[in-house]
C-alpha cells in the first residue's frame, strides 16, 4: 500500500510535469486562496494574542465589567448595528456601582474608565489633536500596569486640573517627551501635565485605549465635563487572590443585579474572555475576509476539477492499459486523486509561505505582528487537502469508472 502511494506520487509528478504550464496555473489558484486565508488567520491570531498576552501578564486576577449584557450575534444585522449605536448610549454602569465594588472584601483595587469626547489643544492653540481622553482613578496604574516615564500618575491629592499624557501625544503636542508642567486645553478647560507615560507597544488592549496617545485625567475632572455624572464604560477589578476570582465575580454579579433593580444589563469578563476581540467590527471584518478567501479557494478548487477532468479525458487510453495490466478501480481513483492532491497541497504550502510573507509585510504597517502558531499552517494546508479531495474525487471516480474496453479503443 505504501509502495503504491510512492508509485502514485511519482506518476502524478510525471504527468503534472508534462503539462507544466497548466499545473502551475491550477496550483496558483489554490495558492492565492490559501494566501488570503493565511494572512487573515495569522493577523487575527496576532491581534488576539496581543491582548491575550496582556491578560496573561496581569496574572489572572483581573475582571472587567462592561455595560450591556453579553451580546450574541444572531445574524449579520446584529453584528453591524450595535457598533455605532452602543458607543453613544448611556452606560448602565454608575459611580455607585464602582464604589460598591471597590468596597467588596475580595477586591484589592478597582478602576473605572470614563471616556470623554473632545480634542486636545495646546495652550497656544497651534496644535489640535484628537486624542482619547480617559477619566479614571489612580488605581488604574497598578491594575493595568502603566509605566510612568516622567513625573507621576494622577493621585487622590493632586489638583483636579492635572493630567497624565501618553508618550506619543507629548511629542505631538509639545514637540518633546519632556512636557511636565506644560499646559493644554480640553473643551476650554485647562490642564497641567504632571506625568508622561512610557512608550508601550500595545495599542490594542482590553482597555480599548491607545496608551501612547491618551490623556488620563481624574474621575472628578471627567465628571466635570458631564454635569457631574460619571459615564463609566468599563470597570477594571483586581482581586486580592486569583483563586478568589470566580467567587468574587459571582459576588459582583449579585451586587450589580441588586443595584440595577434586578436586571443583568452588564457583563463581567474574566480570563481569556477579556481578550476576545473587543470590537465586533474586528470580528465582522475577519468573517467577511474568511468568506472572500473561501470563495477564492472554491474557484481554485473548480480549477483543479477542470484540469483533472481534462487530464482524465486525455489519458483515457492509459487508464484502459492500466486496468488491463491489473489496476483496480481503487488504484485508478487513487492515482488521479493523488494527482489532484499534489496540486492542491503544493498550492497550500506555497500559499502558506506567501501568506506569511504578506502578513509580515502588513504587520509593519499595523500596530501588531502576525502570530505564529501550530494551527495556522494546519488550517491552511488542511484546507488545501480538503479542497483537493473535494474537487479531485469526482474526476478520479470518473476515471475509475471508465470501461477498460472502451478506454482501450480510444486513440490518442
Amino acid at each position: 500500500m505504501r509502495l503504491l502511494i510512492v508509485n502514485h506520487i511519482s506518476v502524478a509528478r510525471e504527468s503534472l510535469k508534462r503539462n507544466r504550464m497548466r499545473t502551475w496555473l491550477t496550483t496558483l489558484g489554490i495558492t492565492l486562496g490559501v494566501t488570503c486565508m493565511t494572512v487573515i488567520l495569522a493577523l487575527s491570531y496576532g491581534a488576539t494574542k496581543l491582548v491575550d498576552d496582556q491578560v496573561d501578564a496581569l496574572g489572572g486576577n483581573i475582571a472587567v465589567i462592561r455595560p450591556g449584557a453579553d451580546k450574541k450575534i444572531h445574524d449579520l444585522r446584529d453584528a453591524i448595528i450595535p457598533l455605532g449605536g452602543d458607543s453613544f448610549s448611556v452606560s448602565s454602569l454608575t459611580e455607585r456601582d464602582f464604589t460598591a465594588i471597590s468596597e467588596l472584601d475580595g477586591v484589592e483595587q478597582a478602576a473605572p474608565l470614563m471616556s470623554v469626547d473632545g480634542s486636545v489643544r495646546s495652550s497656544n492653540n497651534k496644535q489640535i489633536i484628537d486624542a482619547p481622553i480617559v477619566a479614571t482613578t489612580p488605581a488604574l496604574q497598578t491594575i493595568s500596569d502603566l509605566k510612568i516615564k516622567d513625573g507621576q500618575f494622577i493621585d487622590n491629592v493632586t489638583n483636579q486640573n492635572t493630567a497624565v499624557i501618553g508618550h506619543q501625544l507629548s511629542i505631538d503636542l509639545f514637540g518633546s517627551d519632556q512636557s511636565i508642567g506644560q499646559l493644554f486645553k480640553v473643551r476650554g478647560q485647562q490642564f497641567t501635565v504632571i506625568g508622561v507615560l512610557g512608550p508601550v507597544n500595545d495599542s490594542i488592549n482590553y482597555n480599548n485605549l491607545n496608551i501612547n496617545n491618551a490623556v488620563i485625567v481624574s474621575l472628578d475632572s471627567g465628571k466635570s465635563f458631564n454635569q457631574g455624572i460619571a459615564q463609566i464604560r468599563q470597570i477594571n477589578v483586581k482581586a486580592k487572590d486569583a483563586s478568589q476570582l470566580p467567587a468574587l465575580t459571582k459576588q459582583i454579579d449579585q451586587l450589580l443585579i441588586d443595584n440595577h433593580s434586578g436586571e443583568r444589563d452588564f457583563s463581567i469578563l474574566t480570563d481569556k474572555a477579556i481578550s476576545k476581540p473587543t470590537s465586533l467590527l474586528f470580528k465582522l471584518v475577519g468573517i467577511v475576509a474568511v468568506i472572500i478567501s473561501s470563495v477564492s479557494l472554491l474557484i481554485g478548487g473548480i480549477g483543479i476539477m477542470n484540469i483533472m477532468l481534462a487530464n482524465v479525458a486525455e489519458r483515457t487510453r492509459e487508464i484502459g492499459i492500466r486496468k488491463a495490466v491489473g489496476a483496480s478501480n481503487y488504484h485508478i481513483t487513487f492515482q488521479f486523486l493523488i494527482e489532484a492532491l499534489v496540486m492542491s497541497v503544493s498550492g497550500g504550502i506555497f500559499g502558506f509561505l506567501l501568506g506569511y510573507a504578506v502578513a509580515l509585510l502588513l504587520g509593519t504597517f499595523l500596530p501588531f505582528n502576525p502570530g505564529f502558531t501550530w494551527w495556522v499552517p494546519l488550517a491552511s494546508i488542511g484546507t488545501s487537502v480538503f479542497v483537493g479531495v473535494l474537487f479531485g474525487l469526482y474526476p478520479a471516480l470518473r476515471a475509475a469508472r471508465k470501461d477498460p474496453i472502451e478506454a482501450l479503443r480510444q486513440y490518442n
Partner: protein
Amino acid sequence: MKKAESTSVISLRGLTKRYGVGDAEHTVLGNIDLEIKKGEFIAVMGPSGCGKTTLLNVLGLLDKPDEGEYLLDGKPVERITSAKRAEIRSRRIGFVFQSFNLVPRLNVIENVALPLAYTGTSHLKSIKRASAMLKQFHLNEREYYMPWQLSGGQTQRVAIARALVNDPSIILADEPTGNLDSKSSHIILEELSDIHRRGNTIIMVTHNPDMTTYADRVITMLDGKIDTDTKTAVVKNTRSTVDKKVTLGSRSKSSKRSKKERK
C-alpha cells in the same frame, strides 16, 4: 501451475455476450463452450466482427458475459468483485495487444514494470525485474527509450515483456502481429512459442493463417460461434523435439516451421 497438465485452466459453458438493447441488440458471442487446458497454444481465427476480441476480453476479465459460465482454474468468476478481477488480471493474465498499448509517457522499463506496481512490488525490485525481462528479449539497450523511439517489432516485444513480467500463467494476445511486417511477426511468434514452451497457456487472436502454424490448437469462429476446433499435430511434434526447459533468451533457430504446413 500446480495442477496437472490435463486440467482445464479455462472452461466456458454456454457463454453468451450481447451488445446493444432492444432492436439494436446484437449477439457477439452465442452459447460458446470451450475447454482450454494448461499449456495450450491456441490460435483463434475468424473474420472481423465474429467475436474473437470479445472472447479474449471476457477471458481476460475485462468484460463480463451476459449468460453462461466461465470457470478459471475450476472456479466461477461471475460473482467475484471488480477488485478481485483486477487482482486476477494482475497476477494470472498477461495481455498483448495489436496496437501495443504502451503508456506513451513512460519509458520502456517503466512500461514493463507497470503491472508490478499493482502487486505491491517495491520500485527498485520492479525495475530490476523489468530489466531482467527486457534482457530476455534482447532489449536491455532500449530500457530508457520512449515508446515512440522504437520500431513496431521492438514495441511489441516490450509489450510482451510487460505481459510476462508478473509471470502470469495465461497470455492473451489480440492480433499481436496485426501491425507488424512479416519478419517482425515471425520474431514475435517465436517469442510467444518460447513462452509457450515454458508451460504458459497462450490464446492468440489472429487474422493471418501463417501465424497459426505456431499454435497447437486452432479455433475458427464465425458469427459468435466456434466453427472449427482443430489440434495441429505437426506443431505438437515440433514442440516435443524442443527441450521444455529452454529459456526465453536462447531461441533455437531450428524450431522455424515450414510455412507450407496446413493450419
